[in-house]
């Protein structure tokens, strides 16, 4: 899809991959609305984008809060025009150090699902209807290999990402032929605050930089029309078809 001029909504955009993706898409001309819980970090990202001539707006909100959904969708649509690109990047790891499932509080699992699964479902519901009416739109789920591989201690997070992957496939199936497309992207291991919280002893020097991954994801978005809706893509192995 064409990125320049596209009304774009990115959740979890105040740091890590979300912030890098917001900057990368804005650099390529997208009109970006960034959502995150922390207003200060959010303002910093929006400021950075504007300083280099990009278009960005910030909405401080929690996608796990159902009261926030229509305010995010409505405000974003007014600020940058109808949303044609929705990136579900916000994600919660749950308590750290990561507990065994038998030690995981049910409420902690619910809280992770609220941000990683129910929130994206609600926000897509609020945005994809207008996409279907207009006949175009791309919804991106940022997932993790923890959704595909059963890593011990990654229970709550892994469960949420596995469900998110399947959510993307079912959306894609139901909205086939409406012009609304769904892609699930596994960015791979990156040097982010979330990674540090999950694996504090990891060797950071071997981890990918979020900016590099964001550039790859922007490339996937630009080529999205040629990728089957509902696909799950590993950013590290993606090559643009020539």
């Amino acid at each position: 899809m064409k990125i320049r001029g596209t009304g774009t909504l990115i959740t979890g955009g105040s740091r890590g991959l979300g912030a890098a993706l917001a900057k990368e898409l804005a650099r390529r001309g997208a009109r970006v609305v960034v959502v995150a819980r922390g207003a200060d970090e959010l303002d910093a990202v929006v400021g950075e984008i504007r300083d280099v001539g990009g278009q960005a707006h910030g909405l401080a909100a929690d996608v796990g809060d159902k009261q926030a959904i229509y305010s995010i969708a409505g405000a974003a649509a007014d600020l940058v025009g109808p949303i044609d690109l929705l990136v579900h990047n916000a994600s919660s790891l749950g308590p750290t150090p990561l507990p065994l499932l038998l030690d995981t509080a049910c409420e902690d699992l619910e809280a992770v699902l609220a941000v990683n699964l129910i929130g994206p479902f609600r926000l897509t519901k609020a945005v994809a209807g207008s996409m279907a009416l207009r006949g175009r739109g791309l919804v991106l789920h940022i997932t993790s290999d923890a959704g595909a591989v059963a890593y011990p201690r990654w229970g709550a997070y892994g469960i949420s990402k596995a469900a998110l992957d399947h959510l993307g496939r079912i959306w894609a199936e139901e909205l086939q032929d409406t012009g609304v497309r769904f892609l699930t992207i596994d960015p791979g291991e990156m040097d982010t605050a979330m990674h540090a919280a999950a694996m504090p002893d990891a060797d950071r020097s071997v981890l990918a930089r979020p900016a590099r991954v964001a550039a790859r994801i922007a490339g996937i978005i630009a080529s999205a029309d040629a990728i089957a809706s509902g696909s799950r893509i590993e950013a590290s192995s993606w090559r643009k078809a020539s």
Partner: protein
Amino acid sequence: MEEGVVTPATWPRDEPLAGRLLFLDPQSGEIQDLRMRELPRLLCSGDVLVVNDAATLPASLQATTSTGEHVEVRLAGRGPNGGEWTAALLGRGDWRTRTEERSAPPRLTASDLLHLGGDLTATVRRAWSVSPRLVDLTFDREGDALWQALYRHGRPVQYSHLKGPLALWHVQTVYGARPWAVESPSAGLPLNWELLGALRREGVALASLTHAAGLSSIGDSIVDALLPLPERFEIPETTVDAVERARREGGRVIAVGTSVVRALEGSAGAHGGRIRAEAAVTDLRINAQYSLRIVDGLLTGLHEPGSSHFSLLTAFAPEEALLAATRHAEATGYLGHEFGDAMLIVGETRTARGIIPQPELAARRTSREDVDGLGRLLEGSQRRREPDVPAEPLRSSARSMGCGQCRGGGNLRHPKPDWRSGRARGIPRPIAV
């Protein structure tokens, strides 16, 4: 109870397709009692359904003046440059009190400050000369900061016939985008994707525009007589194409809600009878004397005789027929107001009415082969057209053969995909191509 006033629905319906649908044929005055899920029976392949895709903003703000007086600010619309808003003022209290019984608001003048919750403030720029209950104001912030504050402190505008406070999701359609409406474009509330998908599979095109639907009443006779105020709208190119295609080929233009009628007819009125892709403002008022240029039919709620909405309906059907339909609705327990039942007012297709000459192929013998061929075509249109079938004339012939509404021919020519099965594959593209 006043004659012809239907009982208000007091809460949003859980199951939209179970809502009732009163069909009124404006030419014959015929009335049918149906359910929303039966809407596809009343529309024909080639018709275009135009919806208002404005989302609804939480336009009611509880405010205090600098002298500590309480006032409810109901945003009525945003000015063309975006920075200035028009608002209606109501005295102390909230939606639980009938608007007619609310106390008068404090009298505000230019430069008065309103505190709207948190640290959000607005400054009155001017009071309207016709009524001090209408003011223009500017907020102390703009852009993302303003939207966050409005969504934090605002509540949906609602009235005393409802049984509880509304949440924001109660007033959204399933396709809303930009929050331009201060009251929900409620004719679209009974539409869900199950139904929209079924309509598309029938060959009904869907198109959208954005219209800043305003306040319906504030309980003050002077202000209410001014409603609807001028409202901004935006019509995209794709909708112009879809409407023109329908008109050219004998399909009907069906507006979902009075706001869509205002936008389409407002645009046509400004451009010699043809709509344009544009962002504009309309102050058009539609009544029995108004001759519709674009819109052939209207899906709407049940409106009280005497209201401005009812007056708009008289452009679609004779007043006697509308009053008879309203009496029928009242006698048979239809529900009114924004969460109530629906009414469809639409006559025969333009082809059937002789407005558009029937295409050549319409005269083709309606053999079993034709019917099957059309069935394949309509099914195939979800994925691809049969290359050897001349698509447009066959679609037109479907209308002349009839699809229940077009010629009383039942559903024979519109093979019904099993949309109840839950298989949602193959919803056709939004605009029929």
